[in-house]
């Protein structure tokens, strides 16, 4: 920490840390007589929720609606916290900087696309927060960004959830091996290589840190025999990971590689790590519970490549029962629209309670992203990210009707226009019928150069 201060001091105040991120809009709303699924405090029947200045102001029965605040009659309807997706690539212009096995320096914040229609579609499925991640091409990928779906702004900075801590993407297994090893003849060419890349990265970061400390602590007299060290934002970021300032979100499938990274993290004193996908997580559930911030899984998605054959739909339930903080993520612009279905599957496969199932898409992903103080449940003082369903959200018949972020209504099914795009290309070629398919997935931008030729390189997406 002090080292960081020293460094910024050295650079002659050249780094201005103010950002373009602006205060998002904040709204007021009074939701009357809802079935309130608080997630952290059970179901509150026939309850009013008063949102003031973007925050949940009061939760109670028979509250008096304040003047001038829009009132929503939610009788017979279900209000739950906005759904949080811990693994998404929606609203990003680029996803992979697939040119190096370690690209810890790149920031998804630089490529946020506020015009992505996927944000609105996610809102229509009740998702209010997504973790916009770097792809899985590199062993250590870029720094992710946590977005609040304030659709309608043209300013990418306004989508960024300022309170969210820094996170970074790691990736194990076949993707980095194929991209770098098989295509470019670099490390890693095997799972052992992936571990080596990560360890070498951490070791180099420790050397980097020492070099800079030596430089900063040197007296002016000593400096007359030293050259200023080279700056590397890649190493800076790795140092920050080692110092616990960044949460790792690691793309992983197999139990052996998951256990490997748990060991590596223990060795380097890193405890902020979440595993993503984790199809074989059920095999190492106690270890995940003891040493990590949890696992973010698919409900039932597997067999799209060799390393994802050993999978089960009971994964989320087994992890939950073993005390692992578990979330269900989308990693897809389509799944992000019905994560409540994905959560409901854990009741069929594993018999989770309503509260446990809903936690998978609300408070648990919030904890994994380090934002559970602000979002993830309906509690007084929390940010008013809310979604109103016509029925219980774990019912197959449930339909999201309205979605709020910071108390501002961004989706209303009754007012859902056919064309919700924010920006239109003046030279767009129109066809009478069209289907637009978004390819926002883990391997986008891993272009020709990095995929090489071979079977099944372009089809799978995680």
């Amino acid at each position, binding site marked *: 920490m002090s080292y960081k201060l020293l460094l910024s001091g050295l650079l002659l105040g050249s780094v201005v840390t103010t950002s373009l991120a602006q205060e998002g809009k904040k709204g007021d709303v009074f939701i009357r007589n809802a079935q309130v699924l608080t997630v952290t405090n059970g179901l509150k029947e026939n309850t009013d929720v008063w949102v003031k200045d973007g925050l949940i102001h009061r939760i109670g029965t028979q509250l008096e609606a304040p003047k001038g605040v829009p009132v929503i009659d939610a009788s017979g309807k279900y209000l739950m916290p906005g759904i949080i997706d811990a693994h998404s690539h929606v609203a990003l212009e680029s996803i992979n900087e697939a040119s190096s096995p370690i690209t810890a320096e790149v920031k998804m914040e630089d490529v946020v696309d506020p015009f992505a229609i996927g944000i609105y579609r996610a809102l229509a499925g009740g998702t209010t927060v997504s973790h916009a991640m770097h792809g899985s091409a590199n062993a250590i990928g870029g720094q992710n960004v946590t977005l609040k779906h304030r659709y309608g702004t043209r300013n990418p900075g306004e989508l960024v959830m300022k309170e969210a801590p820094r996170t970074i993407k790691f990736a194990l297994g076949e993707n980095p091996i194929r991209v770098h090893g098989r295509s470019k003849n*670099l490390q890693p060419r095997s799972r052992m290589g992936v571990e080596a890349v990560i360890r070498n990265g951490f070791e180099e970061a420790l050397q980097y840190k020492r070099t800079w400390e030596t430089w900063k602590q040197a007296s002016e007299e000593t400096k007359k025999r030293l050259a200023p060290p080279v700056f590397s*934002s890649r190493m800076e970021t790795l140092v920050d990971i080692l110092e616990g300032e960044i949460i790792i979100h690691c793309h992983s499938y197999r139990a052996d590689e998951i256990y490997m990274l748990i060991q590596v993290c223990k060795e380097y004193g890193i405890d902020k790590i979440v595993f993503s996908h984790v199809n074989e997580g059920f095999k190492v559930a106690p270890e995940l519970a003891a040493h990590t911030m949890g696992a973010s899984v698919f409900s039932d998605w597997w067999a799209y490549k060799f390393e994802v054959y050993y999978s089960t739909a009971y994964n989320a339930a087994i992890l939950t029962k073993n005390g692992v903080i578990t979330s269900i993520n989308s990693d897809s612009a389509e799944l992000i629209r019905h994560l409540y279905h994905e959560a409901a599957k854990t009741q069929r496969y594993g018999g989770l309670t309503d509260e446990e199932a809903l936690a998978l898409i609300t408070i648990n992903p919030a904890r994994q992203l380090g934002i559970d103080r602000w979002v993830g449940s309906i509690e007084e003082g929390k940010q008013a990210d809310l979604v109103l369903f016509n029925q219980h959200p774990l019912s197959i018949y449930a339909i999201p009707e309205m979605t709020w972020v910071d108390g501002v209504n961004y989706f209303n099914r009754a007012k859902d226009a056919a064309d919700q795009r924010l920006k239109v290309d003046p030279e767009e070629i129109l066809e009478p019928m069209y289907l637009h398919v978004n390819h926002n997935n883990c391997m986008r931008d891993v272009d020709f150069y990095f995929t090489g030729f071979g079977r099944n390189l372009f089809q799978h997406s995680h």
Partner: protein
Amino acid sequence: MFIYLKVSDLFYPLKNPYFRLMSSHTIAKYLIFCWSFFLCTILSFSLYAQSDNEGKRRLGSSYFISNTTVIPEPGKLLQRQHILFENGVITAVGRTISLPPEAQEIKGDSLFVYAGFIDMANKTGVTEPEIPEKPKDFDSSNPAPEIAGIHPHYRVSSHFLENNPHDKEWRQLGFTLAQKLPLGKGMLPGTSALYTYGQEGTNNLLAENQSLYVKFSTVGGVYPNTDLGVMAKWRDLMQNARLYKEHETRYAVDKGVPRVEKNPVLAALIPVIDRKMPVLLETSDELDIQRALKIQEENELRLILTGVNEGDQLLPTLKERGIGLVLTLHLPEDKFSESSPGEAGADFESRKERVKAAYQQSLNFAGNVEKAGIPFGLTTKHLPRGDFYKNLQLMIKNGLSEEGALAALTVNPATLLGISDMAGTVSEGKMANLLLMSDTLFSEASKVRMVIADGYVFDYSEKTDKNKKEETIWEYKAKTPGGTSRGTWKFSRNEGKWTGSVTYENPEGSGTRTAPTRTEEINADSMRFSFSVPVRGEDLEVTVSGTISGDSFSGEMKLIGYENFPVKASKKDKPERSNEL
């Protein structure tokens, strides 16, 4: 940085107050020095003149545009003015100047004189630099900077062909000065330079290292590969340039410091971090502008954005931060204004309306930038020449004032390029870069009559006089059974009558022969003539006929008594008529 040789400079010592303190002897010696320098220059010019058999050099360098209408700067119009320029510099503008005996007169009584246009962020005539080969054990994650498209130390002047045909064509539209950008596939292609579109064969470079060109683009296949990598790489380069500078500073005072390993990439960035050189950043949409704002915020750079075509809501921020804007003249294509409604259903119609609205917004943009109070320049990059006046007029029809349009081509780019002292207006002491129009600039019928660049006069007036001498040269190719036959046709018209000659490959031996043409019928869209070829004592009659479209001819060559052969010909560029009135 710029050197002018003005006659008035030779008398400068007399105006200098310090000379009052000098003895008359010293002044005399000084004057002799100045004049002998001047005479040497004259002498070397006249030596050159002897071998100037193509007549490319101007005969005199002093011109006088008489009794004309001058628009010295946007929003001002002065009538019955005279303009005198000598040696490429405007020396006087006004009503009371008289025509000096050595000056050539350009009659300006029907003309409107504007400052020559300035193009920003232009790439015509620039070639891509050669990039070093990738080594055998190439590591694409850590490439040499040049291979990754990171070569800010490259200068466009090393890769610019001054005598390229495009710039001449742009000059014909009124451009007299351009900022040339380096080419390169990656994020840092190099530094820009300023060139005047003056006489070919003279050195037209005005300034180098003019700005650092930055793009959000990558070479592909190496680090950095996307905008993600470009942003990260840029941050590292900025920080390391600062450290490099610190190292150099420390080494300069203390040689006990390990020596500075020369790094041309970082060295080239120091003027940027010192705010001595602006960054010219290419943007393609408003998200690029957002990234540019981030870059500027992080490093407090002097920033000019080019290629700007949208971002209405960002204008207040751009203005507040003093960021320069260069708008693209390349407007989107109008796809739907003409289409008939109702063919494909209501959903299609509503989407069509949105595209039309987006198109309209693009047309309004220049006017909105003007209203926001941001003086902007324009770039012709990617613009077909035929669209230049058309698009300017579209901008004007959709909210840009005529003064604003003129400013965007003259005073604004001069300010953005830091050359307001030498270009942008018609006034004394500025470069003689002028545009002489037949009418006010943006009126439909207005035509470019002459362009004066760097004091050289380029005459583009149409010769409406039928009796005026005209000359055309065609290069033809005829397909005959014996192979392709080539040669030229040369026609000239004098007093309304055509005469011509043909060259053809000698059918009886090697070399070419020339024959006069007969019965010429030459029109704008067709041509017919005949000539004789003597073969073994007999005259073979050949008739050529066909159609002309633009600069190309297509038709057939008929040999009487034999068969017909297809023939194609193209008109050779007319030699440009500079300094010829």
